[in-house]
């Protein structure tokens, strides 16, 4: 397990940017952490680390944002996903086969559908701006 104490959103973003170099196509990152934990900030760092110039925002309404980089980054928000049919119609299972990296916010909602080799990123608040970030899984890459 890799753990990191962040003192600001900027630090979280930098941490994610560095982590991106250790990711490969097909990886699924499942985020855990409540509203305002910094999940989207983390994904913003990932996107930059993978070479995307796109603006990163939470896909609350679109459910999935795709950022063009190599490999492509697919950013999900499962906040409104409650059933298997919901999940199916986001195209989640197709994205799993697409060779891209999947970053999944509110992954708690789809726990039963995550592949066994999923990398879990848990972000816990430790103060106004402080966050503890724990990265688990990834077959010893981190």
């Amino acid at each position, binding site marked *: 397990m890799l753990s990191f104490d962040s003192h600001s959103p900027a630090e979280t973003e930098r941490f994610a940017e560095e982590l991106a170099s250790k990711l490969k196509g097909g990886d699924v990152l499942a985020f855990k952490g409540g*509203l*305002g934990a910094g999940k989207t900030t983390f994904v913003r760092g990932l996107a930059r680390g993978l070479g995307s110039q796109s603006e990163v925002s939470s896909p609350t309404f679109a459910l999935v944002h795709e950022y063009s980089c190599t490999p492509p980054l697919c950013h999900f928000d499962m*906040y409104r996903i409650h059933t298997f049919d919901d999940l199916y119609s986001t195209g989640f*299972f*197709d994205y799993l086969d697409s060779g891209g990296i999947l970053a999944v916010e509110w992954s708690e909602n789809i726990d*039963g559908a995550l592949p066994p080799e999923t990398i879990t990123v848990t972000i816990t608040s430790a103060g106004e701006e402080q966050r503890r970030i724990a990265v688990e899984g990834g077959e010893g890459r981190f």
Partner: protein
Amino acid sequence: MKILCLDTSAKTASAAVVEDNRILAESSVNTGLTHSQTVMPMMEGMLSAAKISLQEIDLLAVSHGPGSFTGIRIGIGAVKGMAQGLRKPCLGISTLEGLAYNYRGLDGFVCPVMDARCGQVYTALFQGKDGTVLRLREDEALPIAELETVLAELPEAVTLVGDGAELCFRTMNGKEKLRLAPPQMRLQRASSVGFAAEEMLKTASPLAPGDLMPVYLRLPQAERELLKKEGNAPQRKDDAHVGTGK
């Protein structure tokens, strides 16, 4: 009657032209789920190599599901659009029936299975007999264990076809009555969709492009499976979307 057929319901994208029980042209790509980029150039290339113009096509057939959500929409969208532009009728064929038609002409039970994820499959049951393909069970989504029970009751060997065939064969291993379709007969082929369409046209009328619709099968195990680990769901209040910037 020339039928232009398309199947993009899973990882393979396949296009074909069939006419009176013959395959005039067929093309398949299985290198990743990029059907939105693949199918149009693939069809164009196939038609041009076969010197068949779109105007010669009498009907368009497409596998309408079940299968990949994105894939089915691409197939339906492509066929709908072309049929509309060409002012030709079209026809939707069950993906599973199309798979069973890979075995047309061979006797025996054929069970198409597509991986629906989380231990579930889209499946149906057919029997090849005297050159025809008889349907024994409707398309449905089932947990693999339930399908195993269904297949165990069959009096003879059954052949598994489709992208879930290997998964089921492995999960149900040790059952001597199971056969795994060889690679060249296992996955979607547009020509099989075309032959199923030819058969269907004997009793059914073709559709106007506007009436062609995807057929998604609902998965029975919905919510319980999704939230598998108990107490793991995020605490959610009805007003959580308000005032939090979410």
